[in-house]
């Protein structure tokens, strides 16, 4: 695929802009926007309960989206996919319901220190509610977690270990399959935050043998407003619901409630069927490009950018030295220049990058850096975007009066 072919698919990118903030949210291809409109034009009704044709179509399209999502991450059954608003809701759901069912006084929850707040605060909240303790697994300065480190941290009391497949600061792939094996040997469950992995690499939850896997649609070219939680059926079945309301019960009286089967048990209220239809379209879009092509393009761009960044004095890349350990995520600092000033100068040239702690404040504390700058790529970026990024990067210190 040529750059021009790729760019044509993303209407927002047809302007004078270098969008390098895809780890925050991805731009949307036209087909995804069309799919959302298609849902409302052709299938719109409240799914699940209607007997009329239109409601059956709405239900059917929603369940097709679920099946597509299940296939995408290679879940065994579609009822193992719970639709949520975003990864944050997925992680709140699993933290709440898992802890309510499986965690009690004195237990431990192990959280990787590099986690996004969304995979950290919910565990802290529900650990506290159930009298458990949150412990942390620190990584090296390069963002490395090893089997050794994990083995040393697990105890017989560790009920669950939670870690991102790819951290939104480092971009390195953690060896989830190995970690899952180690955890399961200790009787520990493993929850994986896939927010930054599903847009970049093929995921197979059965091969990885993870117990839970959460991600957002909007980083995967889908609309905002839809996310997913994969969970192993036997675990989800044992867990109590999270949100309560319409569509998630079979019977309610003043005294008694019988919850619906999976997956409805975890989807209270009217579902976001339009956005789910958009997610289906986004997954089909990604599949039509293919992860081989996506990885090839993204690795090329990452290499192209890193090689130049490494040559600029006073620019320090966070994480590993090798481009293949970044998956398009380039977090960095510039000596003596505050990240917000860096971001502002980039912004003035219409290069969209992000400054701050990227919702990973405990990691920044561990690294001893209050905040950083992050440029993050998707396969729709081009060498030209990188050139633009590098040319601004080179002049930042001089613009701030240094050298």
């Amino acid at each position, binding site marked *: 695929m040529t750059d021009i072919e790729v760019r044509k698919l993303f209407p927002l990118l047809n302007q004078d802009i270098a969008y390098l903030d895809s780890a925050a949210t991805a731009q949307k291809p036209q087909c995804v926007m069309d799919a959302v409109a298609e849902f409302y034009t052709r299938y719109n009704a409240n799914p699940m309960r209607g007997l009329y044709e239109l409601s059956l179509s709405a239900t059917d399209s929603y369940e097709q989206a679920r099946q597509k999502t299940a296939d995408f991450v290679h879940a065994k059954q579609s009822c193992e996919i719970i639709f949520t608003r975003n990864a944050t809701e997925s992680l709140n759901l699993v933290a709440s319901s898992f802890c309510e069912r499986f965690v009690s006084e004195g237990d431990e929850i192990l959280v990787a220190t590099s986690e996004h707040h969304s995979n950290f605060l919910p565990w802290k909240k529900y650990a506290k509610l159930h009298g458990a303790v949150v412990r942390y697994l620190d990584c090296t300065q390069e963002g490395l977690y090893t089997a050794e480190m994990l083995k040393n941290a697990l105890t017989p009391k560790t009920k669950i270990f939670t870690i991102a497949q790819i951290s939104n600061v480092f971009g390195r792939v953690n060896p989830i399959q190995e970690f899952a094996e180690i955890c399961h040997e200790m009787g520990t469950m493993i929850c994986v935050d896939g927010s930054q992995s599903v847009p970049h690499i093929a995921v197979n939850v059965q091969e990885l043998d993870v117990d839970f896997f959460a991600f957002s649609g909007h980083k995967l070219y889908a609309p905002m407003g839809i996310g997913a939680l994969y969970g192993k059926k036997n675990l989800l079945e044992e867990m109590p619901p999270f949100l309560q309301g319409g569509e998630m019960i079979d019977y309610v009286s003043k005294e008694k409630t019988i919850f619906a089967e999976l997956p409805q048990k975890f989807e209270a209220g009217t579902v976001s069927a339009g956005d789910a239809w958009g997610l289906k379209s986004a997954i089909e879009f990604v599949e039509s490009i293919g992860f081989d092509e996506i990885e090839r393009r993204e690795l090329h761009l990452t290499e192209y950018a890193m090689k130049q960044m490494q040559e600029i004095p006073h620019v320090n890349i966070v994480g590993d030295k090798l481009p293949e350990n970044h998956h398009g995520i380039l977090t960095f600092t510039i000596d003596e220049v505050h*990240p*917000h*000033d860096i971001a*502002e100068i980039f912004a*003035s040239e*219409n290069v969209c990058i992000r400054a701050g702690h990227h919702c990973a404040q405990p990691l920044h504390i561990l690294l001893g850096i209050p*905040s950083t700058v992050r440029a993050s790529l998707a396969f729709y970026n081009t060498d030209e975007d990188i050139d633009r990024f590098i040319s601004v990067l080179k002049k930042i210190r001089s*613009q*701030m009066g240094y050298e």
Partner: protein
Amino acid sequence: MNNRTFYNEILTEHNRYPAHKHSMELPDFSLEGVNPSCGDDIVLNLKVENGIITDGSYEGSGCAISQASADMMLDLVIGKDVKEAQELADIFMRMIKETVTDEELERLEEASSLQDISHMPSRVKCAVLGWRTLNEIIDKNIS
């Protein structure tokens, strides 16, 4: 939006070579000002005698705008009486809200170079941090 010029020489000079960024022994007043959303964090120290700000300094960390703005502010208010400092703070705040006259603007001297911040809603907090902290010290302790 392009070529926004507020990283000008005045600002970068105050940021690189601040006149007032240092600790102070026995200040009369000392207050921390924080912008939690972007991490700017300063401690403002003042000496006040007979209603006159005789000396001031700040410590802390943050973006160039927050640091330089605090430095320019101290340039301006040291030696002035508290009431005038309040007036200047008021003018500065109104400059950010774009309700200021040219005459008033002149009274801000170098600090008026931050006028363009008014177009950058996300950086306004940085620019006013020092002034907000100054106001708080005066309101709580002096006036």
